[in-house]
């Protein structure tokens, strides 16, 4: 159903925007305002990250946001309530992004059931390759949720096909090596990589890691279906204010 939503939305827009927040950072009240201004500015879907103490795939900005949220006592339970609140307040799909231990300790089946009850459409779990994900995949299928999987430039084409066989909703293509938030130079080199991604799946493609301004979005339009803005809005709130988020998103496309 996430896939259908994205495909119908793509009939109206050339490229969709997915944004991201770390729940509990800077706090839940401000988080709510950030989500609200993102939705009003026209984002098409959102990742809500449950903070984890060991976020190995994240760069310094999101890492510190994780730590800050945890040091303020953010719990998984509170995050799931917040996610439910967002999903029931705003008319776009929300996804949970977190590391596998959060699901594992909560109970994978129970976690996914809660996601379904809370109207959360899918999940991104960056340290869970399909090989380790049987319990997760079974639960996601049983509750009709979309497990979002990741392609990277180092993923061989055959493995892309293997991963695509488990994926639903869309594929998250990592633009480059490294962690979130670092500089990405978008150049024509990315063509052959995206070409390989397209051939491996019919699902919409999202591209993230280092997407930060209008020129990046312009470059990606026509090449991918969804551009992912992650670290950049956290930086914006830190350096400027929550009020800057709306105009920033509106200025992207």
């Amino acid at each position, binding site marked *: 159903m996430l896939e259908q939503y994205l495909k119908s939305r793509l009939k109206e827009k050339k490229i969709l925007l997915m944004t991201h927040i770390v729940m509990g950072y800077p706090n839940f009240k401000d988080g709510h305002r950030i989500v609200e201004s993102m939705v009003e500015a026209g984002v098409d879907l959102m990742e809500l990250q449950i903070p984890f*103490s060991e976020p190995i795939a994240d760069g310094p900005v999101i890492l510190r946001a994780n730590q800050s949220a945890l040091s303020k006592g953010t719990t998984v339970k509170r995050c799931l309530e917040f996610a439910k609140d967002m999903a029931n307040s705003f008319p776009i799909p929300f996804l949970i992004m977190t590391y596998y*231990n959060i699901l*594992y300790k*909560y109970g994978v089946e129970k976690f996914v059931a809660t996601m379904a009850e809370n109207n959360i459409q899918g999940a991104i779990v960056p340290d869970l390759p399909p090989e380790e994900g049987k319990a997760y995949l079974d639960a996601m299928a049983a509750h009709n949720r979309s497990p979002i999987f*990741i392609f*990277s430039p180092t993923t061989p084409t055959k493995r892309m096909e293997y991963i695509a066989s488990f994926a639903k909703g869309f594929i998250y293509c990592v633009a480059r090596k490294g*962690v979130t938030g670092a500089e990405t130079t978008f150049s024509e080199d990315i063509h052959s990589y995206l070409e390989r991604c397209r051939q491996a799946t019919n699902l919409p493609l999202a591209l993230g890691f280092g997407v930060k301004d209008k020129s990046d979005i312009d470059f990606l339009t026509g090449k991918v279906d969804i551009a992912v803005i992650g670290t950049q809005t956290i930086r914006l709130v830190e350096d400027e204010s929550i009020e800057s988020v709306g105009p920033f998103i509106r200025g992207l496309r």
Partner: protein
Amino acid sequence: MLDRGYYDGFGGAYLPEILIATFDELEKVFQEAKGDPGFWQEYETLMSTYSCRPTPITFCENLTRHFGGGRIFIKREDLNHTGAHKANNVMGQGLLVKRMNKTRVIAETGAGQHGVATATMAAKFGFDCTIYMGEVDVERQRPNVFWMERLGAKVIPVREGTRILKDAINEAFRDWVTNMDTTHYVLGTACGPHPFPEMVTYFQSIIGKESREQLLETLGQLPSRVYACVGGGSNAMGIFSGFLNDSSVELVGVEAGGRGLDSGAHASRLCSEDASVGVAQGYKTYFLQNQDGQMKETHSIAAGLDYVGVSPILSHLKKSGRVRFEAATDDEVIDAMSLTIRKEGLIPALESAHAFVQAFKEAPKTSQKDIILINQSGRGDKDIFTIADAFADPAWQQFIIEKARKIITEKAKTYNA
């Protein structure tokens, strides 16, 4: 990724997609090396000419008499080059780096032993080297930082998280996902995603192989009990793997009890109620974590044992009952260390001294026919700053004050001139 490296449900490879291809290559090169009879030979030759292998086993006559039970023997891993068993794993992985044609190595370090060993290997093999070390550990292990830098390594203090070993591991992973084309991550212990637990155990198994042969050759008898300290678990896996199939040999792993298991300030994953099974840093094992799955702060007098997770192979051996696990407190460690120094003239590292604590507790209850084998995984004399602090030695403190005063006076002179 065919064999995911599970040990009765523990282990696995919970990896970000970007690293999968790198792990596939590592697994392939490791399995090829393992299957090549010349490789182990090359490794043994390297270790016998560059390190001090085979390391001896020392009979501790005075300690034996003191406790009045079984005969106490110590496997002398402290005599390795760079002063600990860490050299075994590092030199072995160095040979694999050459096979993979990579030019740079990175490593995490807690106590600094693994960092020094990796920097030494990099200097010998001509690799670039970056070491990640928690800021807290940089402060408490300055002499090791000094040596790593002299050896040509770049030491990066990690200021994220709890600023100790686990945070250094996270940072090393973040470096690796960016630079895997040129870089190998020399993980220092039998933890992490497959194939690291198996690979580190493979190189460390040289300890157990030698120990078994040495005891049979000189005494014609297997030990009744073998003791090793357990941080990540590499020295324990190393010595235990020589005796896993000898059902008469009891294997005892000793964790950091810190200020006591009830205090919350410890690093005991296998003997405390505070730990539970989870998935972090790429593998499934017992972690010190809260109900939500967030990792807890750990404490040990020994930086090398101050870690939230433990080898998945040891979690399996705990579950199967093949290895018994105990914990030693900081205070007990100081006492056991003092006794060993005075009675035998041996200076175990604070980490290794945990194994001595449990062996000493049990020695009087064993029979004189028994052989007790303790792994002295590292030497303590090079950690003089930490150990002198632990002993709160007044003359040493006075020396440091005088030394600092001299440096300050000289700096002031230069400044005024």
